């Protein structure tokens, strides 16, 4: 195995300090880290709080201008191995600030990146909102959204039953995220790769030997002279 590290970046729209959204974010990241640990992967995590980029996002919408902070956030996403997105649901959709972030990021920003969708809301009636709104958006950005999404309502934090169900769901989604990511970047031990991709031993093996150069993760730095399309090729059309 060429690598045993994995960087997961959470994009979270936590509107108040110590919000349930931030709490959920931290629990998912913690769960993903221990899922990684159990198969020998050292998981590092970062959190981007969209709240801090609110003005920059509005400015970019109006003028096309990207602030340094926003550019930095986009670069962090591009460099990540996997993404977790967490946002509160307002009126049956993730809060607009959060979707705006994904609407302004570069096309294909999530290419070959597994993504875990999570959201919070007052009641379970909001539970499919993240699924319905974000899954197509993230797929458009070429992200690979894992099957299990996480939704936490107020009840889930208060009742014993709710808490158990939420914990189980976080564990399930976290494992899906970590195992899929491990397959793509070629990390962890072989058991894990098999679990993630039971159909194809060859595929798992091949991905492991490919290593983890940025090109293999679908990141192409278009301003790197090594990646530029030679002009003669452009001329030929």
């Amino acid at each position, binding site marked *: 195995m060429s690598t045993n590290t994995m960087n997961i970046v959470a994009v979270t729209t936590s509107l108040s300090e110590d919000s349930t959204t931030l709490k959920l974010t931290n629990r998912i990241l913690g769960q993903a880290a221990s899922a990684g640990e159990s198969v020998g992967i050292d998981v590092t995590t970062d959190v981007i709080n969209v709240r801090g980029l609110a*003005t920059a996002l509005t400015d970019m919408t109006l003028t096309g*201008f990207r602030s340094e902070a926003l550019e930095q956030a986009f670069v962090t996403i591009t460099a990540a191995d996997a993404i977790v997105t967490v946002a509160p649901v307002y009126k049956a959709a993730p809060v607009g600030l959060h979707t705006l972030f994904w609407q302004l990021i570069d096309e294909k920003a999530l290419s070959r990146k597994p993504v875990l969708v999570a959201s919070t809301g007052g009641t379970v009636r909001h539970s499919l909102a993240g699924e319905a709104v974000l899954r197509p958006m993230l797929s458009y950005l070429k992200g690979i959204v894992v099957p299990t999404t996480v939704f936490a309502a107020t009840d889930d934090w208060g009742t014993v039953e709710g808490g158990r169900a939420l914990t189980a769901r976080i564990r399930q989604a976290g494992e899906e995220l970590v195992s899929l990511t491990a397959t793509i970047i070629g990390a962890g031990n072989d058991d894990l790769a098999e679990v993630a991709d039971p159909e194809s031993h060859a595929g798992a093996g091949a991905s492991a030997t490919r290593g983890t150069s940025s090109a293999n993760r679908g990141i192409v730095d278009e301003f790197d002279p090594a990646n530029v399309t030679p002009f003669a090729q452009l001329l030929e059309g």
Partner: protein
Amino acid sequence: MELGIFTIGDVTTDPTDGTTVSEHQRIKNTVEIAKKAEEVGLDVFATGQHHNPPFVAPANPPVLLANIAAQTEKLELSTATTLITTTDPVRIAEDYSYAQHLSDGRISLIMGRGNTGPVYPWFGKDIRAGIPLAVENYNLLYRLWREKNLDWEGNFRTPLNGFTVTPTPLDEVPPFVWHGSIRSPEIAEQAAYYGDGFFHNNIFWPTSHTARMVQLYRQRYEYYGHGTASQAIVGLGGQIFMRKNSQDAVREFRPYFDNAPVYGHGPSLEDFSTQTPLTVGSPQQVIERTLSFRDWAGDYQRQLFLIDHAGLPQKTVLEQLDLLGEEVIPVLREEFAKGRPADVPDAPTHESLVIRHREGRDPIPGGGEGSRAYEDRQARAAEGAQNTTREGADR
């Protein structure tokens, strides 16, 4: 180092008094601004090309440039930009050649693709083909200016058979071309391929981004063997508003900034000043900021400022030109010359291009013998030949 101004020809209501100049007045003002630019000692006046309100920048810039040429002596007249995507390259070749003759070689072009989507269909083009249009059209223009009796066939216009541009460029040396782009690596590559200039109008972009694009162009310029990376021909945009006292500048410019069509009601003047080259302050601040561009762009050749937009009154714009001429330009000239390596060229002029042409030193598109691009081509050709031989043997 060429120092100058560029205009986008916007007709914008002055937010401080609600007045809007007429199109006629704005056009006349533009000519007055250009004449004043020469008077105060600037090197370049550049105009955009527009086909839609609220802009009165000319649809065919040589019309304006020729008029200014007739009223000036030394000023270099440029575009910023010429729409290479939607303008027929044959007309570009003819019209700019003509203006080049009228102006005795004072014409240069910055090529751009244009960012107004609806313009494309007005001229029968498809915005999705923006890059291929820029690539094919410029290639045709390049050849039109250099070859007689041209036979040509492409995807975006009717074929040409035995076509010769009239008039041919002055002294058989076409106007110098810069390729402008803010976002597309293909255009930096295009500029490098031909050994042309690269202009980044960085006024809406953080330095880090602009620096990377300039760097890409420089490295590819060297790859194609036109010179070292530090000798590549780089131009930058800039945006300034000055008063002797910097607080006065901020107070006076703020309403124009806050209501400007492009970035109004968006970022604050302060944020925008930190994150982009916009400088609102004293002449000294403008000097310091502009000189700092060299830290990340390297020694460069052309600096154009935007000074006449967002509804600023003509009187104010002319005052900006006075300040530029009296306090900014002389210092910039002196300071930019300091520490500039002797082998870094100045911005090309018609005279320097004529000498280059007569000495047989014109850049070879794609790289001549001795360039890394040439070596790579040779290696690929050898590899191809080998493969062909092998296939033959297998059969």
